[in-house]
């Protein structure tokens, strides 16, 4: 586990804290309420002064955080405060939105991903994403999972490949089984791998999407409210899954469900209205003894 070194917050900051964002409260004052979160080893993902504008709307303000390897980091906060926006910065999915402008730096294993010459295909191979609403392709379960590796040219099957003696059918079968087991879906679908994925239940579809993301062998897994569209039983399955995945991957989860964050994550980052990161630290510490008054108010339900 990682160590925490607390930097004590001054008394006057505690008096300043209010339940809502006070207009005029500057970034420095907000940042001063943070805990500096330190841990052993290098950061897997490291963000520095990330700002996002959607047209004129300043959606994220000076977000800086370091995320350690092989852990679960939860991003919590009321709706609309930029958690998903930040998540999408980490695999450059914000590039898809034409009016979005991203400033600042995001590093993966020490390499800046917002510089020229970055291979987006390679980036998204290493940083996988699971969306809020399950979005399987209208293809078979097998084809959903092997989609990523096929597109990267790693798996080739078919008549021609067989003729040339380099058919990858075995690799595909092995990949499908492995990722479905990782996603705790194998037993439920192993007999119908060629059925259309749209015929699965919501919870199964979401687990399929997780398996699909794992199939590209990522290092980081981004999950945007993965269980919000699911019933409680499916949700708890996903939560168990996330905890297991942290052993092999670096998982970053956006959730609006504080209890969920408290259950599954090692670190928690609290975003508050206006796209500000208010506090980031060890989950236990955030929930039991947050440094910032605003975070305490949010957690105890005074707002949000």
């Amino acid at each position, binding site marked *: 586990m990682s160590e925490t070194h607390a930097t004590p917050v001054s008394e006057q900051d505690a008096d300043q804290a209010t339940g809502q964002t006070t207009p005029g409260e500057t970034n420095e004052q907000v940042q001063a309420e943070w805990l500096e979160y330190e841990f052993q080893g290098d950061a897997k993902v490291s963000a520095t002064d990330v700002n996002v504008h959607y047209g004129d709307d300043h959606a994220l303000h000076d977000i800086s955080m370091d995320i350690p390897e092989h852990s679960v980091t939860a991003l919590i906060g009321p709706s609309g405060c930029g958690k998903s926006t930040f998540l999408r910065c980490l695999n450059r999915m914000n590039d898809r939105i*034409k009016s979005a402008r991203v400033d600042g730096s995001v590093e993966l294993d020490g390499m800046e991903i917002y510089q020229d010459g970055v291979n987006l*295909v390679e980036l998204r191979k290493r940083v996988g994403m699971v969306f809020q609403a399950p*979005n399987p*392709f*209208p293809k078979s379960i097998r084809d959903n999972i092997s989609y990523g590796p096929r597109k990267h040219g790693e798996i080739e099957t078919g008549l021609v490949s067989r003729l040339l003696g380099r058919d990858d059918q075995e690799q595909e079968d092995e990949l499908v089984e492995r990722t479905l087991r990782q996603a705790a879906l194998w037993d439920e679908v192993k007999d119908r791998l060629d059925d259309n994925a749209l015929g699965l239940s919501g919870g199964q579809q979401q687990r399929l999407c997780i398996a699909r993301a794992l199939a590209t062998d990522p290092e980081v897994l981004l999950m945007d409210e993965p269980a919000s569209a699911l019933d409680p039983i499916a949700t708890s399955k996903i939560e168990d899954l996330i905890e297991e995945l942290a052993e092999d991957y670096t998982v970053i989860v956006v959730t609006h469900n504080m209890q969920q964050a408290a259950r599954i994550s090692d670190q928690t980052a609290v975003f508050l209205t206006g796209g500000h990161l208010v506090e980031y630290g060890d989950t236990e510490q955030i929930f039991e003894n947050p440094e910032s008054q605003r975070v305490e108010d949010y957690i105890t339900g005074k707002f949000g």
Partner: protein
Amino acid sequence: MSTISDRVQIGTGRPSVVSAALAMTIAATVLAFLVVPGLTVYPLVAFMVVAAYGWYAHQEETARSLMFVMTASTVLILALITVYLVVKSIPAFRIMGVDIVLKTNGPFWNPREKLYALFPMIWGTLITTLIAICIAAPLGVAGALFISEIAPRWARELLKPAVEMLAGIPSIVYGFIGFVIINPYMMNELSVSTFGSLIAVGIVIGVMALPTVVSVAEDAIASVPGPMKDGSLALGATNWQTMTDVTIPAAFSGVTAAVLLGVGRAIGETMAATVILGHAQVLPEPLYNVFGNTETLTSLIASQYGIASGSQLSALFAAGVVLFVTVLVISIASQRIEARMKQKLGGEV
């Protein structure tokens, strides 16, 4: 979408009399027009009187009934077209029997001897449509992909209206250009022996059907849900891979419908074919000679209606029946396919 006020009015006796009167008078008018044209004006005046009265006294009910009549008129017109076309073509069918479409060796068309076989024209329509679709389908779908997925906004704002305007150019203008430019070019540069060829018509019709395919395919492609595409990109696929492996398969029915509509447009194209082709009702030799010169169903009708009477005119109507039935079947098929696509995407179109 009937409202409460609508239901409240039902139950009072007199309004339905107005509706019934309207229905009867308009039916009588139509009947009179069809059977005894001279008497049409009387039921028509009666209809107008009833409508006027109903408008002032029971406007709500009258409005609804009138609009029902208007809606029924679309069905009526289609029915009338079918009936009259078939009726007028019966004499030709009686003379020729099934040979009218099945006779495959010449001679084919000799009005003086009452010989009417449509096979060369059917073949001509088939070849020109095939050539046209080979041009319009791939280029049209590629164009649709460009407009909806690849083009930057300024290019899209320019290209969409441009494609619509391309659809607007009248077919006679296309025919004129083909006549003045393409035919002489084929004769001079490519030593084609006749003035006019199926491939020239095929190319021109292909350009004419292109905008149809582009518009309908573009609608289908644009209606693929964004999250599906996002999912593909997040897995490290490129935009192009997403287009070919996710978007087009998801929009496949819509794209098929677009191509079918293009086919329908190509089959029905008249004036370009009439102007560009020569007017010989023979099969090209050899059969696959796209540089050959024969008529299409549409150019046959357009070029001969003026001199045709009696059984020859009836044979032209027979050609019209073949056209009409073919296009109707294609239209229904593409509607079915589009409906199925809406279902498949979960009704999220």
